[in-house]
């Protein structure tokens, strides 16, 4: 039987935390999301320079998010896949214009919650807030690993691992964007990809 938007989001949060799907805060949180929104291959969920930011929940579909760097270039940041909550962090934290973009390469179904409503919900739900802190703590550990791998893992092996995880990556991202994901120059990336 098809599940409602609220149930889908609550089930994902339950999956992430080990708490029951019927946990009241998960259901209230899921209810706040708007949607579904549908995207076709090549469409952006969000682009850079936008004032209004959202926390997106991806129910179905694959894509990539890219971050604008200080020097004006763009860096591949990661893959978007079903079950992920994604957003522009600068917008979420400081209300700044978005400094990233997310483009899907398959048909996508997603739901969204405005950054303001997200913050209001977190402020008014202490239990949910504690869960969010725990999730963030794990997220931090993943980023530590990503940073150190970026600096020190053998780039050829890292490329093979990334290609296996994100099949077709080279079709959807430029070589420059991929090079910055690995922290190497474009010419080095070209050599690694050969």
């Amino acid at each position, binding site marked *: 039987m098809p599940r409602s938007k609220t149930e889908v989001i609550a089930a994902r949060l339950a999956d992430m935390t080990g708490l029951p799907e019927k946990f009241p805060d998960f259901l209230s949180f899921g209810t706040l999301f708007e949607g579904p929104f549908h995207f076709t291959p090549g469409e952006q969920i969000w682009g850079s320079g936008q004032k209004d930011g959202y926390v997106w929940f991806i129910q179905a579909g694959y894509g990539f998010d890219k971050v604008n760097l200080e020097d004006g270039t763009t*860096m591949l940041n990661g893959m978007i896949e079903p079950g992920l909550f994604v957003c522009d962090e600068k917008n979420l*934290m400081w209300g700044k214009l978005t400094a990233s973009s997310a483009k899907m390469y398959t048909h996508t179904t997603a739901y969204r919650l405005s950054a303001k409503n997200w913050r209001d919900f977190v402020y008014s739900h202490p239990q949910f807030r504690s869960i969010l802190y725990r999730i963030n703590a794990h997220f931090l550990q993943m980023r530590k690993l990503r940073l150190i791998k*970026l600096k020190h893992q053998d780039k050829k092996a890292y490329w093979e691992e990334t290609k296996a995880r994100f099949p077709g990556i080279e079709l959807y991202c430029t070589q420059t964007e991929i090079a910055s994901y690995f922290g190497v120059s474009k010419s080095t990336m070209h050599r690694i990809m050969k």
Partner: protein
Amino acid sequence: MLANASEELVFEKISLPQGAIKSKLPDLNNHITLVLKGVIGVSHRLETLLNWSHFYTTGDLLFNLEIHEELNRMETKWHVLEDTVLYSINTNVPDEHPLKKLMVAFKLQRSLLCSYQYQHYINNHGLDRHEYSVKWIREHSKIAAALPRQELANFLGISNSSLKTFLKEALTDA
């Protein structure tokens, strides 16, 4: 608002002597902590390699979640590279406290910033290595001088020979 009700908050000053190494500091849980003076380097272990990811200096917010004892699988440690003084505000206040809402906001922002800071370091590694390394060495000459060359090269994500060239460039222009 903070200034008007600051006497109702608990502020603490914490001194860490040069040479101290901390692999946990639970006293800073639920605190907003600022570096008043000094330098703390953050190292991680990946297999046999020891890496520096960043250095906290005067004015930086300090996030002890990165050395949280239950989650710390990369042996992340704080190395006090200079005598350091921290200034800390306890954000755990009772519900009726006049600054309760502000403390909740601080705590949430702290949690978000803590994981975002690593995204910031990841983004830095997407920048041109040459330009970034020379700029970093110029801006952090004392830290650069204190680190063994191999560790500095690892931190910047460059080879030893590149480091030699970049150091020369940074020092020449300085």
